[in-house]
């Protein structure tokens, strides 16, 4: 445990002394703010229309919060590869991996430490963006549960992709390769349910289950869904497992 924390805290400190984390965070918040503003504008227009029909009451959750989280998922798909591409590729290309690999820490501890460090940065980034939906709780009266649980879903979504990004980074020494392969795989995985409409019943069911955004949507209803929770935890486990195995296999080559 001590070794995991040593690696994680180094990762965390390094993230905040180099500009990369700040740039990604600033970009994320800028985009989040822009989309939030646009959604509120749309909601305003809807409210005006609804004023003419007394029995129609548009909900803030349905019109602003859920689409806001769904948009953030896409933003994350593009930005997370930038946060994870360095993780193991840079260690290998700069030679520091040789230090880590000849220190009395296991590959599991190394990978967990890396993941813990980066996912903390990701959590900080997401927590900052919570100011937008959070402000609605203060100034309006939306349902609080979908906002909070939906945010948890988004966090799990981000962490799952962080673990997968670390796994991609374990394959290569090149950060650029890790970043691009990560982005392509993330995008592909994100739209994996696209062919479901035309596929056979069984396959469609599997594809719909595999789609991360569909799992995330379950949280937006405001209840912690255990099957979605297991889905995201399994993705994290998969990413970490692959990273460990790849690093170990590389030694034997």
């Amino acid at each position: 445990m001590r070794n995991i924390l040593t690696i994680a805290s180094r990762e965390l400190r390094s993230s905040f002394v180099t500009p990369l984390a700040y740039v990604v965070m600033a970009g994320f918040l800028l985009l989040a703010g822009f989309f939030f503003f646009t959604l509120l504008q749309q909601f305003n227009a809807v409210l005006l229309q609804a004023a003419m029909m007394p029995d129609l009451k548009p909900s803030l959750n349905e019109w602003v919060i859920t689409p806001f989280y769904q948009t953030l998922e896409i933003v994350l798909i593009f930005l997370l590869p930038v946060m994870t591409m360095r993780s193991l590729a840079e260690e290998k290309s700069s030679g520091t991996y040789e230090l880590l690999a000849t220190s009395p820490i296991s590959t599991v501890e190394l990978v967990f430490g890396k993941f813990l460090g980066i996912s903390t940065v990701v959590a900080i980034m997401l927590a900052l963006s919570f100011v937008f939906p959070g402000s609605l709780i203060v100034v309006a009266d939306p349902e609080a549960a979908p906002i909070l649980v939906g945010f948890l879903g988004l966090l799990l979504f981000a962490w799952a992709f962080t673990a997968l990004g670390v796994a991609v980074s374990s394959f290569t020494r090149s950060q650029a390769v890790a970043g691009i392969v990560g982005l392509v795989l993330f995008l592909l995985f994100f739209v994996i349910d696209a062919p479901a409409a035309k596929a056979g019943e069984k396959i469609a069911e599997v594809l719909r289950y595999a789609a991360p955004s569909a799992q995330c949507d379950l949280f937006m209803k405001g209840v912690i869904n255990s099957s979605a929770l297991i889905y995201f935890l399994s993705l994290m486990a998969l990413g970490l497992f692959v990273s460990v195995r790849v690093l170990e296999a590389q030694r034997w080559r």
Partner: protein
Amino acid sequence: MIKAQDLCKHYGDVEAVKGISFEIPEGAVVGLLGPNGAGKTTTIRLLTTFLPPTSGTATVAGYDIKKQPAEVRKHIGYLPETPPLYPEMRVDEYVTFVAKLKGVGRGSLGHAVEKALTRCSLTDVAHKLCSQLSKGYRQRVGLAQAIVHEPKVIILDEPTSGLDPAQIIEIRQLISELKGEHTVVLSTHILSEVSESCSELLVIADGSIALSGTIAELTAEQSLEQLFLQAVFKRKQHAAAQEQKLAQG
């Protein structure tokens, strides 16, 4: 302190280290000498457990590199060819990080780091970022991380390559200070380095041991240059003869 038995390493079809055996007593400073591409770095990577051997094994500080790699890692300090520094970290931060990794207890952490920094004359630059340091200082930080946990065995891969003469002398002085307390293995392709700082010599050529022994014994009759050239030349002839045999058979 270090004992290798038939240590072999293949990269695909290439035999980088071809079954070498040697023994290094405690407290010795051993120069691992050889032409470029002879297998020095591979041998070092095997001893430091960075790479697993294809066959054969070795014990370092009494632990088997195959069966107890975690124990071996606790007892070695290793400076790879390029010092494994994190450019964005401060020197003292970095050495503390490595000390933690190597398992130095929380209570003795501050003391161990301070001692390593003092020994490598780094106290003046302790608050500088690693990326701001000159090559000579980087090498010294690399040495500081290798000795911070007081390992029994210190392994240095070409510690003086790319340094100016004054810096080379500084690093050599540091190495000679380590003599006695630690067993030191240093690889180099500079002959004078061996006669300056080492007590024993191990010449590797073409993945095999071409010559070994204490410097005093070996240089009693011949100069180091002659010995080295003869050993490497013999090794080359031997390899050529074997190749011929293979071609004929």
